[in-house]
């Protein structure tokens, strides 16, 4: 399956298992602009897979309300770039529902899915990675898969998790990535980073599409510099797996974090800050962040904007030679 098919499979499993589960958002009825919901309306009915009016604050608010009654709400925001009208509902409402009510009420059965990240030509409003805005919000979980197999397991965990979750799907991988994905349901735990390649000299951390970039950088480092890299996919942005990252840095002494989102205030800064607190004496070099520039995401200049393997490789080389 490719990534959009693995998402469909997860949604199919959810609706089959949980009679209260519903999927809604703009254009989900005919299958969705990225084909993630193809076939589900025919299979489960128009009361369970349906279009909403074009209104993100409504989609998320509506989803919260469904979840408050205990039913499972799976909302789609068509592009992560358009999630901002729903920011108030997510941050002020969904994230705080359980806390502010003293656990009398919650919207834990809400999951918001949204296409995320660069796609080659998306420009300002079809390329954004807004995870950092939500990282600053206790009460929600933010999850980003790197592959079809990861996507299905993580999405199922988000849907079943008793807290409101945002699941960002790297749109550039929807068709590009393909691998063996079981048809039956399975879960991948949240808040657990995955060491996808062990190494001894440098720790490389990323999430989503960028995991593939740093994996390639690890090969380049091995080949050109004889450097052994430990490659980690963070997977859950919040609550994030501090222990796995720190354990790795204690071993290697060097950390490079990379994301497409702009450098300033990007999630790499949170990781960097925590790691220097926890692992200060283990560090052999300053922590390196290779990120997008502090600009809106450009159209024609995308090849120059993105933190590609050459920029990551160069930063790694400087860290080794520090």
């Amino acid at each position, binding site marked *: 399956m490719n990534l959009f098919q693995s998402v469909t499979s997860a949604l199919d499993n959810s609706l089959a298992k949980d009679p209260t589960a519903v999927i809604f958002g703009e254009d989900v009825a005919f299958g969705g602009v990225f084909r993630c919901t193809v076939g589900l309306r025919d299979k489960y009915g128009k009361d369970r897979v349906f279009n909403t009016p074009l209104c993100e604050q*409504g989609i998320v*608010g509506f989803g*919260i309300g469904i979840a408050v009654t205990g039913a499972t709400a799976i909302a789609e925001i068509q592009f992560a770039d358009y999630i901002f009208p729903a920011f*108030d509902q997510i941050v002020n409402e969904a994230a*705080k529902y359980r806390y*502010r009510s*003293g656990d009398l009420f919650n919207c834990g059965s809400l999951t918001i899915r949204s296409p995320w990240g660069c796609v080659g030509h998306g420009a300002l409003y079809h390329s954004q990675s807004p995870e950092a805005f939500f990282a600053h919000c206790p009460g929600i979980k933010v999850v980003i898969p790197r592959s079809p197999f990861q996507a299905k397991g993580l999405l199922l965990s988000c849907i079943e998790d008793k807290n409101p979750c945002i699941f960002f799907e790297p749109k550039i991988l929807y068709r590009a990535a393909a691998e063996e994905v079981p048809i039956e349901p399975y879960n991948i735990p949240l808040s657990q980073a995955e060491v996808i390649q062990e190494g001894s000299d440098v720790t490389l951390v990323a999430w989503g599409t960028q995991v593939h970039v740093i994996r390639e950088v690890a090969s380049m480092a091995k080949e050109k510099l004889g450097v052994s890299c430990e490659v980690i996919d963070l997977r859950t942005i919040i609550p994030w797996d501090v222990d796995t990252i720190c354990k790795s840095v204690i071993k290697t002494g060097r950390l490079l974090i990379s994301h497409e989102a702009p450098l300033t205030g990007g999630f790499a800064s949170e990781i960097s800050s925590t790691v220097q607190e926890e692992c200060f004496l283990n560090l052999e070099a300053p922590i390196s962040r290779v990120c997008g520039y502090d600009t809106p995401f450009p159209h024609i200049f995308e090849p120059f904007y993105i933190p590609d393997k050459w920029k990551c490789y160069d930063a790694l080389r400087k860290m080794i030679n520090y």
Partner: protein
Amino acid sequence: MAVAIAAARVWRLNRGLSQAALLLLRQPGARGLARSHPPRQQQQFSSLDDKPQFPGASAEFIDKLEFIQPNVISGIPIYRVMDRQGQIINPSEDPHLPKEKVLKLYKSMTLLNTMDRILYESQRQGRISFYMTNYGEEGTHVGSAAALDNTDLVFGQYREAGVLMYRDYPLELFMAQCYGNISDLGKGRQMPVHYGCKERHFVTISSPLATQIPQAVGAAYAAKRANANRVVICYFGEGAASEGDAHAGFNFAATLECPIIFFCRNNGYAISTPTSEQYRGDGIAARGPGYGIMSIRVDGNDVFAVYNATKEARRRAVAENQPFLIEAMTYRIGHHSTSDDSSAYRSVDEVNYWDKQDHPISRLRHYLLSQGWWDEKQEKAWRKQSRRKVMEAFEQAERKPKPNPNLLFSDVYQEMPAQLRKQQESLARHLQTYGEHYPLDHFDK
């Protein structure tokens, strides 16, 4: 035919209604013979008639350039059952509620009024940090609450304490929330008047305005799917109705066919902002037809009018799976909150008029007196009793400790994340050394 259409249009314009509203009002009304508004059908393409084919509207062509004039001088009329002296105007509209129910309405309103006075004072004295009274709007709360089933889900804004009072939420718990003491079910997390009660199906209040509106719609959708025979009621003020979330909620409710009552308390002010600065159309009721929503405007200070409208809206919302909009006209007699002094933006005369001449409590009292169900002696006894009950609850709430500071950290997620637990431990260690600088004596150990 053309003459009839023209005449209908003139009548419609004078009424300040759009064509859609006319369609909705034309359906046999309150006594329930109407069908729900059918979904828009696409026109067949086979016809040779010169009829519009647009998917976006079901309408005739017109060859005269004419803008629809919004009519705010003769707005949607205000339904009432009692006059300002509590006398039934049209006997066929009298809901003939039994004595016990009317007494419950009266006692809920007056007990709320008494609690409001005491808690407002307690803020002035520095005993609680903040308070909002419900003066003048008690009728909107109990009239609507009485028309619902006890299990109907309530989403409120912040000035609906009478709904909880009618559902017998104990004084002890109102006070506990305001004091943030150890009995507060909300665990002391929010400012006063942010009540919530799972048992009584009253979703916890939050400060951001209108956020509850699309949420209520989602809850109604889920209730519909569950065949729960439940309505959801969503309260909000005329100010909150300006928020984007209100527009979102109305549109979703109509398109997704949700059994929901939108109940707008139009009390004339959003803090200091009068309605003339809040909207330019005919209030909130006139917006309903724009969304395809059955709408009505009622006298919010007339408990029976509120009751009748809510009762019928509930019946039809559940039976027909469609939203209803009730705009209850009323007046905010009190300040917006203890942080407000409304003499800065309105005259004492204006406030006094409503307090003395058109108050839901006095109107219902006149009704009770004329029925022979109440008298001065009972009034005096009840005032004394309700004051005593409130004072007792108040004194007890004052004496109770606050919850353990560990409760600062729980319920952020269902399970406490490792990093948060570390922060909790860090505070505990901090208090071991610096505890004397913190008000630990008032908190549960």
